[in-house]
């Protein structure tokens, strides 16, 4: 119980006979969406080895981000990781796959080819110059191919976007696409250290901060004035 209440966006209310978890439905839905992304296995060329195979492997382990359930069918997936060049013959198929995915759907474009055409940008008569000519992209992850750590960085960026993103009252609200590039001059150890930090920071929700940020009805705010005590003592009790 402690684990769940620590990570859920919301606050514990102390009432006689136990505690009550108070949260907003939008927040909890976005929290759930961000932590259970199901990617579609769509790899066309080189990036597929790094993005889908190396990340699925035991060292990098995509399962840590709750995104390891790779689905071969677009109808069961909500994250499209574009790994590899898109050529003109594949473009209509990619569009079809994207349209078959259920809402809400998210797209990460990995590698130079899906961002701009990459090494095949000049003199090529088949390459599509960037996948965003066909489908909307949420996060760009540059590299040729990007390291698995870079994909994780992109995935964390996407999770952040989802958590701050659309609500039930305003469906379809998307943020502008972002480039998620690792800074220059970092070593493998740095990347892994940063990854660990980011992972802890992104996946642990600060309850106090979340409560302060929320706009509660005035009555609720008064009642939960002694909130910090309630959290610490209430986490251990059963609700």
């Amino acid at each position: 119980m402690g684990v769940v209440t620590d990570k859920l966006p919301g606050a514990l209310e102390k009432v006689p006979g136990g505690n009550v978890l108070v949260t907003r439905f939008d927040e909890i839905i976005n929290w759930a969406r961000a932590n259970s992304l199901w990617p579609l296995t769509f790899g066309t060329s080189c990036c597929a080895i790094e993005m889908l195979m190396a990340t699925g492997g035991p060292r990098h382990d995509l399962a840590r981000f709750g995104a390891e359930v790779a689905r071969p069918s677009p109808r069961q997936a909500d994250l499209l990781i574009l790994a590899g060049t898109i050529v003109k013959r594949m473009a209509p198929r990619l569009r079809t796959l994207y349209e078959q995915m259920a809402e809400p759907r998210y797209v990460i474009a990995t590698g130079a080819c899906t961002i701009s055409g990459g090494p095949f940008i000049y003199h090529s008569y088949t390459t599509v110059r960037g996948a965003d000519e066909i489908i909307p992209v949420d996060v760009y992850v540059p590299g040729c191919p990007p390291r698995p750590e870079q994909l994780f960085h992109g995935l964390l960026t996407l999770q952040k976007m989802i958590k701050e993103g659309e609500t039930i009252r305003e469906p379809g609200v998307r943020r502008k696409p972002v480039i998620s590039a690792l800074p220059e001059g970092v070593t493998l150890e740095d990347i892994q250290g940063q990854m660990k930090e980011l992972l802890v920071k992104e996946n642990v929700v600060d309850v106090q901060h979340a409560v302060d940020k929320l706009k509660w009805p005035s009555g609720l705010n008064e009642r939960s004035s002694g909130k910090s005590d309630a959290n610490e003592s209430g986490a251990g009790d059963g609700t």
Partner: protein
Amino acid sequence: MTIEVSSLKELVEQASGDDRSPDTQEYFVNMGPQHPSTHGVLRLVLKLDGERVLRCIPVLGYIHRSIEKISEHMNYMNCVHLTDRMDYLSSIMNNWAVSKAVEEAAGIEVNSRIQYIRTIFAELERIQSHQLWWGVLGMDLGAFTPFLYGIRDREVLNDVMEETVGARLTMNYVLPGGLMADIHPNFVHRVKEFIKYFRPKLDEYDDLLTNNVIIQERLRNVGVLSAQTAVQYGATGPVLRGSGVAFDLRKDHPYGVYDQADFEVPVGTVGDSWDRYWVRVEEMRQSLNIVEQLLDNIPPGDFLVKKLNSKIKIPEGRYYSQLETARGILGVFIASDKKDEPYRMHYRSPNFNNLWCLEPMIKGDYIASLIGAMSSLDLVIPDIDR
């Protein structure tokens, strides 16, 4: 022997005409281009009778990036970097193939240190490629565990190579006239450690998959490719050797410093999927032997013969050079018109020829066997389409 060229439409019409029995109805199924077990964007048009495969027609072009055309606008130093993206699992060998062709044509002699390092890296990458194939074969047949084992060991080797090369997959290490950089001071030590680490793991692979009854049942006598058919279709590499033809460029026409290493060429007997599997697992052992023999004898010298500018000019004419990648013979054809850019650049990719062996292998067999047989071919689709 005559070669018939026909369009897909003709093939489909032709295929729907014959083999019509009164009891069952034949139908067509599209496998791909988005399919988890085709390793990319290969589309197979299957004509099925129940679960039996009557025809299997590959349809290409879903990842055709016109690498050959782009090469015509680039100088010879730049052409090399596109080849990593063809067969990305043997990128150093692809670089080497182009470099070898350019060096032979332009008359550039490289010293023996370069040849030693190139050979060692090629063999390490062959191991790396087969590790991935081994894991993916298990995954295609429904076992997820081998994938985790294969990737685990691949990452260990990846670290060793990354220290020198600086990249994980598209390495860009070999240039016409030498190498991008010298080997890292730790390289020899770490490769020795890897060999010590990986030999017991190969026995583990045998325990997990090779001696597994289910895998044996799925692979033995499935997708039999006779030696004659393999030669006719131009199959090379482990596919050809699995069919019992002991042809390996490393042994028969040695390049690099393969003539100084003592190794065996594993050859299958029946030509089924199992033989191709066994040949690749044995090749990993032989590659370890080659690396072990060459590692201590790397002579001193420069890693680049001279400071080459980008304007390598090749005399007018046509040049062809080939070497053995992890999947077979990669040939590079250059037509030069005395400029620093090729007039025409053509690659004879091993996967293209290996792919067409699929139909004679699988005709009349179950659709489930098709997956295992295709996995044993170890196809890389971007190398087919280029």
